């Protein structure tokens, strides 16, 4: 059964079904990330102190990731343009590059996350907070190597367990900042993975459709592209908001 306008545009709206559907889906995504952004503002405004992102997170790595994601967006739109010019070989190349860069983004992100989980913060009963890496964890004490300060590496600190009020690594539980960081980037990563799955399908088995229904396949690439650009767009906001401010 052939549903009308799943390939060609309906004259009065000028759209084929999937394109309208995807834009509606993106509208709901805007509301999803909007709610989280709203949460971020609310918590930040209400917090007595809020760390600068760059004191906790790795800006060079994130910049690299920004470049990777922007580039993948360009190759995505190029893959669609190649199909419009009936060049299937180029399409495969560009979509392949998009997929590879999407994966590269995830790899970099993994390193970033991992760095957070081996980074510790300790709050003492007298209120002082020491941030660094754990050298030693014993029954009655821990030894901590504090982070570099103004290019100087402080010497390790010996802390008795009795002094410690709270000792955790930089997981989402550490602070409100890290909570929102992990939630926002985690959700974004899930979106990247979703986009990758779709793109890989369209690059591999899904590409067979080019032979039978070229217009419909081009539509699919356009729609997948819209989604991928949206994922890029979200990152364009997440990057300054979390890392630079």
């Amino acid at each position, binding site marked *: *059964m052939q549903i009308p306008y799943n390939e*060609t*545009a309906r004259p009065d709206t000028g759209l084929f079904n999937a394109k309208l559907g995807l834009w*509606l889906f993106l509208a*709901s995504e805007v*509301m999803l990330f909007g709610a989280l952004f709203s949460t971020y503002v609310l918590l930040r405004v209400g917090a007595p102190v809020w760390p600068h992102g760059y004191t906790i997170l790795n800006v060079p790595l994130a910049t690299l990731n920004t470049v990777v994601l922007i580039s993948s967006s360009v190759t995505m739109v190029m893959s669609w343009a190649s199909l419009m010019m009936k060049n299937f070989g180029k399409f495969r190349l560009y979509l392949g590059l998009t997929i590879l860069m999407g994966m590269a983004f995830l790899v970099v992100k993994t390193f970033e996350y991992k760095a957070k989980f081996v980074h510790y913060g300790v709050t003492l009963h007298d209120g002082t907070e020491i941030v660094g890496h754990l050298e030693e964890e014993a029954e009655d004490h821990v030894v901590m190597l504090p982070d570099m300060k103004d290019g100087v590496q402080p010497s390790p600190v010996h802390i008795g367990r009795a002094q410690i009020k709270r000792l955790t690594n930089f997981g*989402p539980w550490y602070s409100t900042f890290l909570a929102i960081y992990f939630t926002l980037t985690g959700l974004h990563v899930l979106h990247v993975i979703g986009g990758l799955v779709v793109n890989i399908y369209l690059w591999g088995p899904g590409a067979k459709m080019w032979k039978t229904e070229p*217009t419909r396949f081009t539509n699919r690439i356009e729609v997948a592209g819209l989604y991928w650009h949206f994922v890029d767009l979200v990152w364009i906001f997440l990057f300054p908001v979390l890392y630079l401010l």
Partner: protein
Amino acid sequence: MDHSSSHGGVGTTHKTHGAHHEADHLHQSFWRKYVFSTDHKVIGIQYGITSLLFLLFGFSIMMIMRWQLAYPGQEFPIKWLAHLMGQDNMPDGIMLPEYYNQLGAMHGTIMVFLGVVPLAVGAFGNYVMPLQIGAIDMAFPKLNMMSYWVYFCGGVTMLWSFFVPGGAANSGWTSYAPLSVIATTGQTIWLLGMVFLITSSLLGSVNFIVTIIQLRVKGLTFMRLPFFVWTQFVTSFLLLLAFPPLEAAGVLQLMDRIAGTSFFLPSGLVVSGQALGVSGGGSPLLWQHLFWFLAHPEVYVLILPAMGIIGEVIANNTRKPLWGYKSMIYSIIFLGFMSFIVWAHHMFLTGMGTAISSFFQTTTMIISIPSVIILTALLLSLWGGSIRYTTPMLFALSFLPMFAIGGLTGLPLGLNVSDIHLHDTYYVIGHFHYVVAPGTLMALFAGIYYWFPKVTGRKMNDILGRLHFWGSIVFMNGVFMPMFIQGLAGVSRRLYDGGEQYAHAQSVLHWNEFTSISAWCLGLAQIPFIVNFFWSMKKGQKVNSNPWEATTLEWAATTSPPLAHGNFEKIPEVYRGPYEYSTRGAKKDYTPQNQASEA
């Protein structure tokens, strides 16, 4: 792709495809045909049956709770049922407060998210809307199937939560933080279930909007759409844009519960005398904001499709066009829009501050205007009509005063000052239930009686229908009217003893028994409906394709039931508005939308 060639060809291509597919259909296996079907009609029926079962389940939960409220601390009379619910929950047949909380939370969740919305949108929307716009199916049939099965998974997840340690979610259907964050495992399962349900309605709403915009047949302009289609259209936008913030809130609460974050946990929180070992710095109010950002539009998701059904039934049974069809449409658009900026009237008592309270009080007063316009238009539609008192019409007529009571009792809640007294009392329960039970549910029953012949080719029995109607309307009022009295006296909601230990509740305590008995009678009143439903499927009076002599396409252009694939023998074209009843000079008292000339 050029436009001209694609447009003209549509009608003809379908016909051939339709015939072609009839052949395909015969080869489909049982599973593809009835279980994993992509046909909107089958999916609509699946939604219908599942949601009716959930409605029955959610109502049964309440009938059990009503025993505890009427006779607190007394042994439950139905021994095997008490036994079934387990010694941990009802030792010696006496309900524990913890269990009461679980049942309360799940009653709300099930009725709203698994019962009424799936029935109003998933079932009626899916089955009727494509037929009314002359579409051969939804725009994305596979997505449609997925939407049902994701909903199904959500339902199973919710039921499963009863069996985890600590039982189901017990922080109310609103899941207010921080209580919900520190609650038992059931809450995590609840959140998981909600993620399924939100995903399902997201898929559904995208599908509905695209279908309505893209698949209307030739000649069916927006201002010729049946009112029911319009309500589904606006409802879908509400679902599309209001649910994501709740999804965000659900993710945040899940993080709080699983990853130890403090989105909703303020600093210095002490639980059972012990400081909670979390970073703190969160805001419990944030949950309420995000929750009500969905849950207020959700109220309109519950009521709009009901209004749509009422519009169809009233126009058909008064043999008149809807009075003020256009005003009604503008009203529901405005209603949908405004429903996004009234949410904080649920939060007057949180100490938001007077400026914000005043703002939301004002918007709340404004939103009552379109509701009144719609109700007035429906009421005026009756004027001078030759009314047929069919069973669906009885239900539709009862909707008008019941929804009016529900709406008017909402005004004192929307006003900042009177809400201080009424907030969180039984008055709120009474108000809300008047809108959704004698309001929406009566409309949904009207819809079932009205479209049953379309689905089965047989009419439901009128005597049983009338029995069902009178039983329902009388006992629903018996259940909900006393709640206003108790609420005005200040009795709080969610008390597991019904207020027995409060001095101020003593004078109105006797109403609990009255309410409970009404609730059980209401349960009995549903028996004629259940019998009627199954009996009529097999033995009901056989009818032609348009037994109500209606004008809209689902009756005028299809058989009953419509063709399994493709719906129409011939794709109709539309020449006129949706409700051309009793047109001067016409031969019959109704002129179908697909009829080219009056004669």
